[in-house]
Protein backbone atom coordinates (compact mmCIF):
# COMPACT_ATOMS: atom_id res chain seq x y z
CA UNK A 1 0.00 0.00 0.00
CA UNK A 2 1.17 3.49 -0.96
CA UNK A 3 1.87 5.60 2.12
CA UNK A 4 2.04 9.38 2.25
CA UNK A 5 4.04 10.00 5.41
CA UNK A 6 5.53 13.48 5.28
CA UNK A 7 3.78 14.28 2.02
CA UNK A 8 2.23 17.73 1.91
CA UNK A 9 -0.31 19.48 -0.26
CA UNK A 10 0.73 23.01 -1.11
CA UNK A 11 -1.71 25.67 -2.27
CA UNK A 12 -0.32 28.23 -4.69
CA UNK A 13 -2.33 31.13 -6.09
CA UNK A 14 -0.44 32.55 -9.09
CA UNK A 15 -1.02 36.29 -9.38
CA UNK A 16 1.12 37.05 -12.43
CA UNK A 17 1.68 35.33 -15.77
CA UNK A 18 5.29 34.77 -14.80
CA UNK A 19 4.26 33.03 -11.56
CA UNK A 20 1.75 30.92 -13.50
CA UNK A 21 4.48 29.92 -15.91
CA UNK A 22 6.85 28.96 -13.07
CA UNK A 23 4.14 26.80 -11.53
CA UNK A 24 3.39 25.17 -14.88
CA UNK A 25 7.10 24.37 -15.21
CA UNK A 26 6.72 22.13 -12.17
CA UNK A 27 4.15 20.05 -14.07
CA UNK A 28 6.83 18.93 -16.50
CA UNK A 29 9.34 17.78 -13.87
CA UNK A 30 8.24 14.14 -13.74
CA UNK A 31 11.04 13.16 -11.36
CA UNK A 32 9.40 15.22 -8.62
CA UNK A 33 6.34 12.87 -8.77
CA UNK A 34 3.99 15.79 -8.19
CA UNK A 35 0.25 15.18 -8.26
CA UNK A 36 -1.73 18.27 -9.17
CA UNK A 37 -5.01 17.99 -7.30
CA UNK A 38 -6.06 21.33 -8.82
CA UNK A 39 -4.14 22.01 -12.03
CA UNK A 40 -3.02 25.52 -13.00
CA UNK A 41 -5.92 27.25 -14.72
CA UNK A 42 -5.33 30.94 -14.66
CA UNK A 43 -4.40 33.89 -12.50
CA UNK A 44 -6.08 34.01 -9.11
CA UNK A 45 -7.18 30.38 -9.26
CA UNK A 46 -5.67 28.08 -6.61
CA UNK A 47 -3.27 25.35 -7.65
CA UNK A 48 -3.15 22.47 -5.17
CA UNK A 49 -0.20 20.16 -5.56
CA UNK A 50 0.48 16.97 -3.61
CA UNK A 51 4.23 16.87 -3.01
CA UNK A 52 5.97 13.67 -1.91
CA UNK A 53 8.33 14.16 1.03
CA UNK A 54 11.56 13.83 -1.01
CA UNK A 55 10.41 16.59 -3.37
CA UNK A 56 9.31 19.04 -0.71
CA UNK A 57 12.63 20.81 -0.37
CA UNK A 58 13.30 21.33 -4.11
CA UNK A 59 9.72 22.41 -4.78
CA UNK A 60 9.69 24.94 -1.95
CA UNK A 61 13.12 26.17 -3.03
CA UNK A 62 11.82 26.63 -6.60
CA UNK A 63 8.81 28.60 -5.39
CA UNK A 64 10.76 30.73 -2.94
CA UNK A 65 13.54 31.42 -5.45
CA UNK A 66 10.89 32.78 -7.80
CA UNK A 67 9.15 34.76 -5.08
CA UNK A 68 5.97 32.68 -5.35
CA UNK A 69 4.06 32.52 -2.09
CA UNK A 70 2.33 29.31 -1.10
CA UNK A 71 0.50 27.88 1.88
CA UNK A 72 0.52 24.36 3.27
CA UNK A 73 -3.01 23.06 2.80
CA UNK A 74 -2.31 19.61 4.22
CA UNK A 75 0.62 19.26 6.62
CA UNK A 76 0.80 15.46 6.43
CA UNK A 77 -1.32 13.58 3.92
CA UNK A 78 -0.90 10.26 5.69
CA UNK A 79 -2.39 11.66 8.89
CA UNK A 80 -5.63 12.50 7.05
CA UNK A 81 -5.68 9.13 5.29
CA UNK A 82 -5.21 7.36 8.63
CA UNK A 83 -8.03 9.39 10.16
CA UNK A 84 -10.31 8.47 7.27
CA UNK A 85 -9.53 4.77 7.71
CA UNK A 86 -10.15 4.96 11.45
CA UNK A 87 -13.53 6.58 10.84
CA UNK A 88 -14.50 3.84 8.38
CA UNK A 89 -13.50 1.07 10.77
CA UNK A 90 -15.37 2.70 13.64
CA UNK A 91 -18.49 2.89 11.53
CA UNK A 92 -18.17 -0.74 10.45
CA UNK A 93 -17.98 -1.86 14.05
CA UNK A 94 -21.01 0.20 15.02
CA UNK A 95 -23.54 -0.56 12.34
CA UNK A 96 -22.81 -3.57 10.15
CA UNK A 97 -25.25 -3.63 7.25
CA UNK A 98 -28.06 -6.01 8.17
Amino acid at each position, binding site marked *: *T*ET*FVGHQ*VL*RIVPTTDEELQKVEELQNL*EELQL*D*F*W*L*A*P*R*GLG*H*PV*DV*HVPFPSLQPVKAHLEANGISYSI*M*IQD*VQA*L*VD*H*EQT*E*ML*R*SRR*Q*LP*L*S
Partner: protein
Amino acid sequence: TNTFDYTTYHSLDEIYAFMDLLVAENPNLVSKLEIGQSTENRPLYVLKFSKGGTNRPAIWIDTGIHSREWVTQASGVWFAKKIVQDHENDEGLASILDKMDIFLEIVTNPDGFVFTQTQNRMWRKTRSKRSGSLCIGVDPNRNWDAGFGGPGASGNPCSETYHGPYANSEPEVKAIVDFVKSHGNIKAFISIHSYSQLLLYPYGYTRTPVPDQKELHEISEKAVAALSSLYGTSYKYGSIITTIYQASGGTIDWTYNQGIKYSFTFELRDTGRYGFLLPAKQIVPTAQETWLALQVIMQHARDHPY
Protein backbone atom coordinates in the same frame (compact mmCIF):
# COMPACT_ATOMS: atom_id res chain seq x y z
CA THR B 1 -31.14 0.94 4.41
CA ASN B 2 -32.53 3.07 7.25
CA THR B 3 -29.68 1.90 9.45
CA PHE B 4 -27.03 2.39 6.76
CA ASP B 5 -24.45 4.94 7.88
CA TYR B 6 -24.55 7.78 5.31
CA THR B 7 -22.08 9.79 7.34
CA THR B 8 -19.05 7.66 6.60
CA TYR B 9 -17.17 6.34 3.58
CA HIS B 10 -17.83 2.74 2.55
CA SER B 11 -16.10 -0.05 0.65
CA LEU B 12 -17.24 -1.26 -2.75
CA ASP B 13 -18.83 -4.35 -1.23
CA GLU B 14 -20.78 -2.25 1.28
CA ILE B 15 -22.05 0.04 -1.49
CA TYR B 16 -23.05 -2.91 -3.67
CA ALA B 17 -24.81 -4.50 -0.69
CA PHE B 18 -26.61 -1.20 -0.05
CA MET B 19 -27.80 -1.15 -3.65
CA ASP B 20 -29.20 -4.69 -3.38
CA LEU B 21 -30.94 -3.80 -0.14
CA LEU B 22 -32.49 -0.65 -1.64
CA VAL B 23 -33.82 -2.68 -4.58
CA ALA B 24 -35.19 -5.37 -2.27
CA GLU B 25 -36.96 -2.76 -0.14
CA ASN B 26 -38.46 -0.93 -3.14
CA PRO B 27 -39.15 -3.45 -5.90
CA ASN B 28 -41.79 -1.23 -7.51
CA LEU B 29 -39.51 1.75 -7.90
CA VAL B 30 -35.87 0.62 -7.99
CA SER B 31 -34.12 -1.94 -10.15
CA LYS B 32 -30.45 -2.71 -10.71
CA LEU B 33 -28.97 -3.01 -14.18
CA GLU B 34 -25.52 -4.32 -15.08
CA ILE B 35 -24.33 -2.27 -18.06
CA GLY B 36 -20.94 -3.93 -18.43
CA GLN B 37 -17.81 -5.06 -16.62
CA SER B 38 -14.68 -3.17 -15.66
CA THR B 39 -11.13 -4.00 -16.75
CA GLU B 40 -10.79 -6.24 -13.70
CA ASN B 41 -14.19 -7.82 -14.42
CA ARG B 42 -16.17 -6.07 -11.74
CA PRO B 43 -19.83 -5.48 -12.64
CA LEU B 44 -20.82 -1.93 -13.56
CA TYR B 45 -24.15 -1.42 -11.79
CA VAL B 46 -26.71 1.27 -12.50
CA LEU B 47 -29.77 1.87 -10.34
CA LYS B 48 -32.94 2.62 -12.29
CA PHE B 49 -35.72 4.58 -10.59
CA SER B 50 -38.93 4.26 -12.56
CA LYS B 51 -42.67 4.41 -11.97
CA GLY B 52 -43.24 2.23 -14.99
CA GLY B 53 -43.60 2.56 -18.74
CA THR B 54 -40.97 1.67 -21.31
CA ASN B 55 -38.12 3.78 -22.59
CA ARG B 56 -39.38 6.97 -21.05
CA PRO B 57 -37.33 10.17 -21.23
CA ALA B 58 -34.58 9.77 -18.66
CA ILE B 59 -32.02 11.52 -16.51
CA TRP B 60 -28.55 10.03 -15.98
CA ILE B 61 -26.40 10.77 -12.94
CA ASP B 62 -22.99 9.22 -12.36
CA THR B 63 -20.51 9.53 -9.50
CA GLY B 64 -17.04 8.17 -8.87
CA ILE B 65 -15.63 8.15 -12.39
CA HIS B 66 -12.44 9.48 -10.78
CA SER B 67 -12.01 6.96 -8.02
CA ARG B 68 -10.29 9.13 -5.40
CA GLU B 69 -13.17 11.58 -5.34
CA TRP B 70 -14.82 9.69 -2.50
CA VAL B 71 -17.36 12.33 -1.58
CA THR B 72 -19.02 11.72 -4.96
CA GLN B 73 -19.68 7.98 -4.53
CA ALA B 74 -20.84 8.69 -0.97
CA SER B 75 -23.17 11.40 -2.28
CA GLY B 76 -24.47 8.96 -4.90
CA VAL B 77 -25.47 6.57 -2.12
CA TRP B 78 -27.27 9.40 -0.35
CA PHE B 79 -29.05 10.45 -3.59
CA ALA B 80 -30.31 6.88 -4.07
CA LYS B 81 -31.85 6.81 -0.61
CA LYS B 82 -33.23 10.33 -1.04
CA ILE B 83 -35.06 9.40 -4.24
CA VAL B 84 -36.68 6.45 -2.49
CA GLN B 85 -37.55 8.47 0.61
CA ASP B 86 -39.04 11.41 -1.29
CA HIS B 87 -40.48 9.91 -4.46
CA GLU B 88 -44.01 10.31 -3.15
CA ASN B 89 -43.92 13.14 -0.61
CA ASP B 90 -41.74 15.56 -2.57
CA GLU B 91 -43.97 17.10 -5.23
CA GLY B 92 -41.08 18.16 -7.44
CA LEU B 93 -39.46 14.75 -7.43
CA ALA B 94 -42.77 12.93 -7.76
CA SER B 95 -43.65 14.97 -10.84
CA ILE B 96 -40.23 14.25 -12.37
CA LEU B 97 -40.72 10.52 -11.85
CA ASP B 98 -44.24 10.75 -13.24
CA LYS B 99 -42.70 11.62 -16.59
CA MET B 100 -39.08 10.48 -16.48
CA ASP B 101 -36.82 7.69 -15.26
CA ILE B 102 -33.64 8.35 -13.31
CA PHE B 103 -30.49 6.26 -13.83
CA LEU B 104 -27.79 6.49 -11.16
CA GLU B 105 -24.36 4.90 -11.51
CA ILE B 106 -22.78 5.26 -8.07
CA VAL B 107 -19.41 3.53 -8.61
CA THR B 108 -18.49 4.32 -12.19
CA ASN B 109 -14.87 3.23 -11.77
CA PRO B 110 -14.95 0.25 -9.36
CA ASP B 111 -11.41 -0.98 -10.08
CA GLY B 112 -9.97 2.42 -9.25
CA PHE B 113 -12.22 2.70 -6.20
CA VAL B 114 -11.06 -0.63 -4.77
CA PHE B 115 -7.48 0.43 -5.48
CA THR B 116 -7.97 3.61 -3.46
CA GLN B 117 -9.23 1.52 -0.56
CA THR B 118 -6.46 -1.07 -0.66
CA GLN B 119 -3.33 0.27 -2.34
CA ASN B 120 -3.31 3.96 -3.10
CA ARG B 121 -5.87 6.42 -1.74
CA MET B 122 -4.87 8.94 -4.37
CA TRP B 123 -5.62 6.78 -7.42
CA ARG B 124 -7.71 8.63 -10.02
CA LYS B 125 -7.72 6.62 -13.22
CA THR B 126 -8.96 3.21 -14.38
CA ARG B 127 -6.73 0.18 -13.83
CA SER B 128 -6.28 -0.89 -17.43
CA LYS B 129 -2.87 -2.28 -18.36
CA ARG B 130 -1.41 -2.28 -21.84
CA SER B 131 1.65 -4.12 -23.09
CA GLY B 132 4.62 -1.92 -23.62
CA SER B 133 3.40 0.69 -21.23
CA LEU B 134 5.26 1.43 -18.02
CA CYS B 135 2.25 2.86 -16.28
CA ILE B 136 -1.29 1.74 -15.52
CA GLY B 137 -4.64 3.37 -16.07
CA VAL B 138 -6.43 5.86 -18.28
CA ASP B 139 -8.20 9.04 -17.20
CA PRO B 140 -11.83 8.05 -17.81
CA ASN B 141 -12.74 11.70 -18.26
CA ARG B 142 -10.41 12.10 -21.25
CA ASN B 143 -11.37 8.84 -23.00
CA TRP B 144 -14.62 9.89 -24.67
CA ASP B 145 -15.03 10.47 -28.40
CA ALA B 146 -15.29 14.25 -28.21
CA GLY B 147 -12.15 16.06 -29.26
CA PHE B 148 -10.38 12.86 -28.23
CA GLY B 149 -6.60 13.15 -28.07
CA GLY B 150 -6.67 16.90 -28.52
CA PRO B 151 -5.09 19.54 -26.29
CA GLY B 152 -6.22 19.16 -22.70
CA ALA B 153 -5.29 15.52 -22.29
CA SER B 154 -1.99 13.67 -22.23
CA GLY B 155 -0.61 10.98 -24.52
CA ASN B 156 1.75 9.90 -21.76
CA PRO B 157 0.43 6.69 -20.08
CA CYS B 158 2.05 7.82 -16.81
CA SER B 159 0.10 11.06 -16.75
CA GLU B 160 -2.99 11.52 -14.56
CA THR B 161 -4.79 12.84 -17.65
CA TYR B 162 -3.72 10.10 -20.07
CA HIS B 163 -6.45 9.82 -22.70
CA GLY B 164 -5.86 6.17 -23.51
CA PRO B 165 -4.89 4.45 -26.77
CA TYR B 166 -8.20 5.26 -28.47
CA ALA B 167 -11.64 6.68 -27.63
CA ASN B 168 -13.79 4.37 -25.47
CA SER B 169 -10.79 2.10 -24.84
CA GLU B 170 -11.90 1.85 -21.22
CA PRO B 171 -14.75 -0.61 -20.61
CA GLU B 172 -16.09 1.69 -17.90
CA VAL B 173 -16.56 4.40 -20.55
CA LYS B 174 -17.69 2.09 -23.35
CA ALA B 175 -20.41 0.64 -21.12
CA ILE B 176 -21.97 4.08 -20.64
CA VAL B 177 -21.57 4.95 -24.33
CA ASP B 178 -23.39 1.76 -25.32
CA PHE B 179 -26.09 2.30 -22.71
CA VAL B 180 -26.74 5.91 -23.78
CA LYS B 181 -26.91 4.89 -27.44
CA SER B 182 -29.17 1.89 -26.83
CA HIS B 183 -31.51 3.79 -24.52
CA GLY B 184 -31.70 6.69 -26.94
CA ASN B 185 -34.01 8.83 -24.82
CA ILE B 186 -31.77 10.36 -22.17
CA LYS B 187 -32.54 14.05 -21.84
CA ALA B 188 -30.16 15.10 -19.06
CA PHE B 189 -26.71 13.75 -18.22
CA ILE B 190 -24.91 14.80 -15.01
CA SER B 191 -21.44 13.53 -14.19
CA ILE B 192 -20.28 14.31 -10.66
CA HIS B 193 -16.66 14.95 -9.65
CA SER B 194 -14.83 16.68 -6.84
CA TYR B 195 -13.34 19.05 -5.87
CA SER B 196 -13.45 22.82 -6.32
CA GLN B 197 -17.13 23.68 -6.25
CA LEU B 198 -18.03 24.27 -9.84
CA LEU B 199 -21.05 23.57 -12.04
CA LEU B 200 -19.85 23.15 -15.61
CA TYR B 201 -21.42 22.64 -19.01
CA PRO B 202 -19.85 21.87 -22.42
CA TYR B 203 -17.49 22.42 -24.12
CA GLY B 204 -14.13 21.55 -22.68
CA TYR B 205 -12.32 20.64 -25.88
CA THR B 206 -13.07 23.78 -27.90
CA ARG B 207 -13.69 27.47 -27.28
CA THR B 208 -16.67 27.34 -29.60
CA PRO B 209 -19.72 27.99 -27.39
CA VAL B 210 -22.41 25.33 -27.49
CA PRO B 211 -25.59 26.40 -29.33
CA ASP B 212 -27.54 26.09 -26.05
CA GLN B 213 -25.03 28.08 -24.03
CA LYS B 214 -27.53 30.74 -22.90
CA GLU B 215 -30.02 28.19 -21.59
CA LEU B 216 -27.35 26.07 -19.89
CA HIS B 217 -25.89 29.16 -18.25
CA GLU B 218 -29.30 30.19 -16.93
CA ILE B 219 -29.99 26.72 -15.57
CA SER B 220 -26.55 26.73 -13.91
CA GLU B 221 -27.25 30.08 -12.27
CA LYS B 222 -30.51 28.78 -10.78
CA ALA B 223 -28.97 25.47 -9.74
CA VAL B 224 -26.04 27.15 -8.00
CA ALA B 225 -28.39 29.57 -6.24
CA ALA B 226 -30.39 26.61 -4.92
CA LEU B 227 -27.24 24.81 -3.82
CA SER B 228 -25.80 27.81 -2.01
CA SER B 229 -29.09 28.55 -0.27
CA LEU B 230 -28.64 25.61 2.09
CA TYR B 231 -25.22 26.15 3.68
CA GLY B 232 -23.85 29.12 1.78
CA THR B 233 -21.35 26.99 -0.14
CA SER B 234 -20.02 29.15 -2.93
CA TYR B 235 -19.89 27.77 -6.45
CA LYS B 236 -18.75 29.13 -9.79
CA TYR B 237 -20.35 28.05 -13.03
CA GLY B 238 -19.76 28.23 -16.76
CA SER B 239 -18.41 26.20 -19.65
CA ILE B 240 -15.53 23.85 -18.90
CA ILE B 241 -13.01 25.63 -21.09
CA THR B 242 -13.78 29.12 -19.85
CA THR B 243 -14.16 28.20 -16.17
CA ILE B 244 -11.26 25.84 -15.61
CA TYR B 245 -9.12 24.82 -18.58
CA GLN B 246 -9.14 22.99 -21.87
CA ALA B 247 -9.96 19.32 -21.41
CA SER B 248 -10.46 17.01 -24.37
CA GLY B 249 -12.24 13.65 -24.51
CA GLY B 250 -14.56 14.64 -21.66
CA THR B 251 -17.80 12.91 -20.72
CA ILE B 252 -20.31 15.70 -21.10
CA ASP B 253 -18.81 17.00 -24.35
CA TRP B 254 -19.63 13.60 -25.80
CA THR B 255 -23.10 13.42 -24.28
CA TYR B 256 -23.91 16.92 -25.51
CA ASN B 257 -22.75 16.00 -29.01
CA GLN B 258 -25.04 12.95 -28.77
CA GLY B 259 -27.92 15.41 -28.50
CA ILE B 260 -28.32 15.35 -24.71
CA LYS B 261 -28.79 19.09 -24.28
CA TYR B 262 -28.81 19.18 -20.47
CA SER B 263 -25.27 17.91 -19.92
CA PHE B 264 -23.52 19.07 -16.77
CA THR B 265 -20.53 18.27 -14.59
CA PHE B 266 -20.34 19.08 -10.90
CA GLU B 267 -17.17 19.57 -8.93
CA LEU B 268 -18.33 19.14 -5.33
CA ARG B 269 -16.65 20.33 -2.12
CA ASP B 270 -13.90 20.91 -0.85
CA THR B 271 -13.24 24.61 -0.60
CA GLY B 272 -9.51 24.14 -0.11
CA ARG B 273 -8.71 22.64 3.24
CA TYR B 274 -8.85 18.88 2.61
CA GLY B 275 -9.05 18.41 -1.13
CA PHE B 276 -9.96 14.80 -1.94
CA LEU B 277 -9.65 13.87 1.74
CA LEU B 278 -12.89 15.60 2.66
CA PRO B 279 -13.89 14.60 6.20
CA ALA B 280 -16.78 12.13 6.31
CA LYS B 281 -18.85 14.52 8.40
CA GLN B 282 -19.16 16.70 5.29
CA ILE B 283 -20.68 13.92 3.17
CA VAL B 284 -24.31 14.55 4.08
CA PRO B 285 -24.24 18.36 3.89
CA THR B 286 -22.45 18.08 0.54
CA ALA B 287 -25.03 15.62 -0.77
CA GLN B 288 -27.93 17.71 0.57
CA GLU B 289 -26.82 20.92 -1.12
CA THR B 290 -25.97 19.13 -4.35
CA TRP B 291 -29.39 17.50 -4.40
CA LEU B 292 -31.04 20.94 -4.47
CA ALA B 293 -29.05 21.80 -7.61
CA LEU B 294 -29.81 18.43 -9.20
CA GLN B 295 -33.52 19.03 -8.65
CA VAL B 296 -33.30 22.34 -10.51
CA ILE B 297 -31.69 20.62 -13.50
CA MET B 298 -34.09 17.66 -13.42
CA GLN B 299 -37.14 19.89 -13.16
CA HIS B 300 -35.95 22.00 -16.06
CA ALA B 301 -35.50 18.86 -18.16
CA ARG B 302 -38.99 17.71 -17.16
CA ASP B 303 -40.56 21.06 -18.09
CA HIS B 304 -38.64 21.51 -21.33
CA PRO B 305 -39.05 18.31 -23.32
CA TYR B 306 -37.16 18.22 -26.64
